[in-house]
């Protein structure tokens, strides 16, 4: 039977349109209980012996999702009306519910009550949509009760007072979440129940921690209608809130309507907005735009600290500019260029769960074991969260995960609930897991479905594969690979043959991962989600299952393997004459490490063919590198450190800078060349749907700190083009040998990250890669650890006509979202790596206070930031005790020096100082590395 839904809608232009939609009612929707005699049970999920079946309300799903994910709650019927409402309100909760319903282990059944003939509810005149939905839920619950008969009890779980009352009046059983969980008799479940907000069961049941502070702390958020009208009129501006990682009381809202970023200073102005929320901002009057940070921080509970951290490798990781030299003198009331504002309303919340630990506090006396504690998130951008827990003494020294529920304007901190414990603070595994969670890295083992996609082990080369005309047999070539020591996932190998006409045939062979990872399979979906392998100090989190990464795809020596090859014919001056691409079978004859390869090349006594090949490649690589630098490629220095890990305890034994040898550079050159060749080929065939990589040119603003530093020491840098910058960097030679490297390190932090993008989204002039000075670039050479390379492999195979392009490439929007996901995962993997290195640094120095040399890289009003080259870390050194403002030290901005008045003791930028490093614990369970002047 056909019903029609008609409603009146207002379009964006403001016209009023009547919308009429069909709504079909069916009689083939089944109840989902295995024990039901009437219905078709082929898709049933609810257990046959269940005594109680739960039907959940929308608000229960939205707020208590953590409780629902707990295996103790089962046999739940999710109505389609509830699912729709959840989807409209909160997409992440919806995805979680979807995962629960599709998970075959959990007994969650989706019942389409909106389309079932008996449970369809038509809106009555004067009924609000919410009331109608509540009525639909009650009707469905009643239907279930009458359908399943007396053997099972149908229980409606709702926190809404009205709904519960009406349900009980109609003869249904209804309970609130708390009473149901209490009846289950599992006390630890109660912790997962989130605190009710004032709409639900009355606030009287919740005690506020500090009753004396019941005054309104924050401004009320403006209602949505006012916000939309304000946005239209231009008095409010919409944008995403980004909290400064190093100063949680400063935030930026990127607004298109202003064209610049709006600065939000202080907690009151941030008005309960979180990092990542979409907010509506009102500009403050112009005279309030430049605020000094000293006048804002009224509380002494929280104030900003600078921590010791790794040298940032790009502008994304570096602290924002405004934390720089702030002269204490009030005369500098010169208007800062950025407009300031305050948040008036939140358009879309971006709440999720956070890792951290509880603030130390004394155990409360009575209160039935329920304690109110403050949770401090590890990520400094988020405020403290108030939770209730029964297990306070248990949790005080643990890292836990907490989710946010609400933030009243009466309460200083948001309220949340405990989700789960990770482990003890300071314990290396716990901390590793914390940084994985913070960076949204999936480290769970691969599911059975994914593992089912792997080929049979042990894998051998079969004759059908050889017989494929698209696959060339290159087993006769002398192929070898050069990788870091102990590397098991070898994804690239090379060969170099001298041709009779004096030219060389050079080939780069990349592991043929797409032969095993087919599009659309669970293996492919999982790899696409993960995006990249994550390299922590002590372990690696793989994108693909181990059998593939270390055995089947890895181009190990002395075994036949499948590969995708790029073969050039080039002159001895590395001019490329021709390029060809083919799938192939190779047999690597040697898997060398960088050290081994270098040793071979250096040892003049060795004259065998493998060494000759290496030397030829090396000379070609040198020519290629020289040409690249001529074109303007930048050589930036990385301050990467390497740990030596004890094999038993997995504790770091030694820490040192990563050594770059000629062999590294050789491999790098050929990988770059292969990437560029492949980029050209796929762009030619698929101009609109290729996945490429670009590096945007840094703007003048981004390079400003570098210029300022250079000017302070009398160095002239030309930043008009990448070539000019590269030349200037080459000429920046100082007295000590480390000077040049330091300048390069400073330059590195001004660059943005390179990103993946879909070629259909940008114009060809924007494809440029600034750092490599290449007009086109992509990633092709590491499909085992990067999903972008898997995509490029598929594009290349389609370009060669070997395989069909999967349909996902037709969808531009999906490709863009894949590229965005890859960029997101790449960034997260990098941050996780860095966090892992920082963690191990901390562990290393815990028992080893050290004295060492350091170079000053930034001047501040109360001290300076130093860079320690031996360990590759940087951190603050304070000249006066914390909390002291002003005093004897004065900053000279032009010369970038800080000096003590009355003396001639000064510290200038890039000066060498000696410092002492030690791990201290100013607060229990919060170790940090401290640097002091010796």
């Amino acid at each position, binding site marked *: 039977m056909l019903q029609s839904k008609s409603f009146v809608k207002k379009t964006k232009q403001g*016209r009023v*349109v009547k919308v009429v939609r*069909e*709504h079909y*009612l069916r009689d083939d929707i089944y109840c989902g209980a295995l024990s039901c005699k009437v219905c078709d049970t082929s898709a049933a999920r609810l257990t046959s012996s269940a005594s109680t079946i739960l039907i959940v309300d929308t608000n229960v799903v939205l707020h208590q999702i953590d409780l629902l994910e707990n295996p103790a709650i089962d046999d739940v019927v999710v109505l389609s009306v509830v699912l729709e409402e959840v989807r409209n309100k909160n997409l992440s909760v919806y995805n979680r519910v*979807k995962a629960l319903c599709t998970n075959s282990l959990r007994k969650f059944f*989706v019942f389409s009550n909106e*389309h079932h003939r008996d449970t369809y509810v038509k809106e009555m005149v004067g009924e609000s949509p919410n009331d109608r939905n509540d009525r639909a839920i009650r009707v469905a619950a009643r239907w279930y009760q009458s359908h399943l008969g007396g053997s099972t009890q149908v229980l409606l779980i709702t926190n809404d007072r009205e709904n519960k009352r009406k349900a009980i009046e109609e003869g249904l059983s209804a309970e609130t979440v708390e009473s149901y969980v209490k009846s289950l008799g599992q006390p630890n479940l109660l912790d997962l129940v989130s605190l009710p907000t004032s709409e639900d069961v009355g606030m009287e049941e919740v005690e506020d921690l500090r009753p004396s502070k019941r005054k309104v702390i924050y401004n009320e958020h403006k209602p949505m209608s006012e916000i939309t009208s304000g946005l239209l009129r231009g008095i409010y501006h919409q944008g995403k809130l980004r909290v400064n990682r190093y100063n949680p009381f400063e935030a930026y809202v990127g607004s298109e309507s202003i064209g610049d970023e709006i600065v939000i200073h202080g907690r009151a102005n941030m008005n309960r907005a979180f990092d990542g929320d979409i907010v509506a901002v009102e500009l403050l009057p112009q005279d309030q735009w430049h605020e000094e940070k000293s006048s804002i921080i009224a509380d002494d509970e929280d104030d900003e600290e600078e921590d010791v951290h790794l040298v940032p490798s790009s502008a994304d990781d570096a602290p924002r500019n405004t934390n720089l030299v702030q002269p204490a003198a009030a005369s500098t009331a010169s208007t800062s260029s950025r407009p300031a504002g305050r948040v008036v309303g939140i358009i879309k919340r971006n709440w999720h769960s956070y890792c951290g630990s509880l603030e130390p506090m004394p155990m409360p006396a009575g209160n039935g074991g329920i304690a109110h504690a403050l949770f401090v998130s590890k990520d400094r951008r988020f405020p403290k969260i108030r939770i209730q827990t029964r297990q306070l003494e248990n949790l005080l020294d643990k890292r836990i995960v907490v989710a946010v529920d609400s933030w009243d304007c009466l309460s200083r901190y948001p309220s949340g609930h405990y989700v789960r414990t990770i482990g003890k603070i300071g314990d290396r595994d716990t901390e590793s897991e914390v940084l994985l969670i913070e960076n949204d890295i999936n480290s769970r083992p691969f599911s059975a479905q994914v593992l089912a996609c792997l080929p049979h082990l042990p894998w051998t080369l079969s004759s059908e594969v050889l017989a494929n005309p698209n696959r060339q047999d290159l087993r006769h070539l002398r192929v070898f690979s050069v990788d870091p020591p102990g590397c098991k996932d070898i994804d690239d190998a090379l060969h170099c043959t001298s041709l009779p006409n004096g030219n060389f045939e050079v080939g780069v062979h990349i592991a043929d991962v797409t032969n095993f990872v087919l599009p659309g399979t669970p293996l492919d979906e999982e790899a696409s989600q993960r995006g990249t392998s994550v390299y922590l100090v002590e372990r690696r989190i793989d994108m693909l299952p181990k059998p593939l990464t270390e055995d089947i795809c890895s181009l190990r020596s002395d075994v036949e393997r499948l590969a995708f090859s790029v073969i050039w014919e080039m002159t001895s001056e590395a001019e490329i004459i021709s390029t060809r691409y083919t799938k192939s079978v190779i047999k690597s004859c040697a898997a060398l490490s960088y050290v081994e390869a270098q040793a071979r090349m250096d040892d003049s006594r060795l004259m065998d063919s493998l060494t000759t090949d290496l030397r030829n490649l090396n000379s070609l690589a040198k020519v290629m590198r020289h040409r690249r630098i001529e074109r303007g490629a930048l050589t930036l220095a990385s301050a990467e450190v390497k740990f030596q890990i004890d094999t038993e305890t997995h504790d770091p034994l030694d820490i040192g800078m990563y050594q770059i040898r000629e062999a590294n550079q050789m491999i790098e050159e050929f990988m770059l060349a292969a990437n560029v060749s492949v980029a050209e080929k796929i762009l030619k065939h698929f101009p609109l749907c290729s996945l490429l990589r670009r590096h945007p040119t840094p703007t003048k603003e981004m390079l400003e700190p570098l210029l300022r530093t250079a000017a302070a020491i009398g160095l002239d840098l030309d930043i008009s083009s990448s070539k000019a910058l590269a030349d200037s960097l080459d000429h920046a030679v100082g007295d000590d040998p480390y000077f040049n490297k330091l300048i390069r390190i400073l330059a590195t932090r001004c660059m943005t990250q390179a990103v993946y993008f879909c070629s259909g989204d940008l114009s060809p002039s924007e494809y440029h890669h600034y750092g490599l000075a290449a007009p086109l670039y992509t990633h092709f050479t590491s499909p085992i650890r990067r999903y972008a390379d898997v995509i490029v492999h598929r594009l290349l195979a389609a370009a060669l006509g070997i395989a069909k392009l999967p*349909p996902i490439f037709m969808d531009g929007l999906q490709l863009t979202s894949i590229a965005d996901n890859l960029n997101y995962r790449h960034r997260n993997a990098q941050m996780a790596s860095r966090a892992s290195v920082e963690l191990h640094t901390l562990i290393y120095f815990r028992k080893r206070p050290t004295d060492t040399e350091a170079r000053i890289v930034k001047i501040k009003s109360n001290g300076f930031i130093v860079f320690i080259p031996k360990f590759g870390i940087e951190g603050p050194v304070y000249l006066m005790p914390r909390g002291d403002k002003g005093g004897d030290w004065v900053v000279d901005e032009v010369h970038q020096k800080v000096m003590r008045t009355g003396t001639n003791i000064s510290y200038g930028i890039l000066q060498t100082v000696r410092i002492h490093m030690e791990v201290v614990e100013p607060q229990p369970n919060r170790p940090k590395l401290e640097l002091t002047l010796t």
Partner: protein
Amino acid sequence: MEYVNPLTGFRLDGRRPNEMRQIRGEIGVVAKADGSALFEMGNTKVIAAVYGPREVQNKGQQINNRALVRCEYSMANFSTGDRRRRPKGDRRSTEISLVIRQTMEACILTHLLPHSQIDIFVQVLQADGGTRSACINAATLALADAGIPMRDIVTSCSAGYLCSTPLLDLNYIEDSAGGPDVTVGMLAKMDKVTLLQMDAKLPMDIFENVMQLAIEGCKAVAHYIREVLLEHTKQLECHRGA
């Protein structure tokens, strides 16, 4: 936007991917015309009127051995959500008129009616996706009502591909999703396709699936149309009496 709910398998209006909307056909709605019909597919309502065979109005266009088939498609001002005046000769109308004319011309036995003209007027009263198909179905009914000899019943149905599923009989919301839209018109009994149109791009193997689904939809519509015609004929015959 989830056009096919992954958890329940239903579309936005509660149909399964291979289900058509409710169809209804009525004959004899325009008194003045020789043959007329009203055809509804879900909320799409189309009225068709056939005049003919009659004297050719424009002697220059007269064909000596065949009938001249003319077709005009128009949408009423009130057929969509916002009332809009549509110019008579705009591109879309001309294209659809041409399409319907070619489809019907393929099935009318024009050589039996030389020197005459058959006019088919189709107007959309309510547009909710699939107007082209509804027009062809209505025109078939009207032609049969007018007693014009035809080779076979021409029916038409559309199908699309959204959320990786072939969907039969798209409505307006699904049509506006931007996915591919395949319209198939075929002679039901003879199993011959006379109209095949598609927007957007589809890989070949998926296209075959979608087209097959549309063909099955056409056959279902043909079954219904045949019943309507039979019922109508029976009624006329029994009223007429001996």
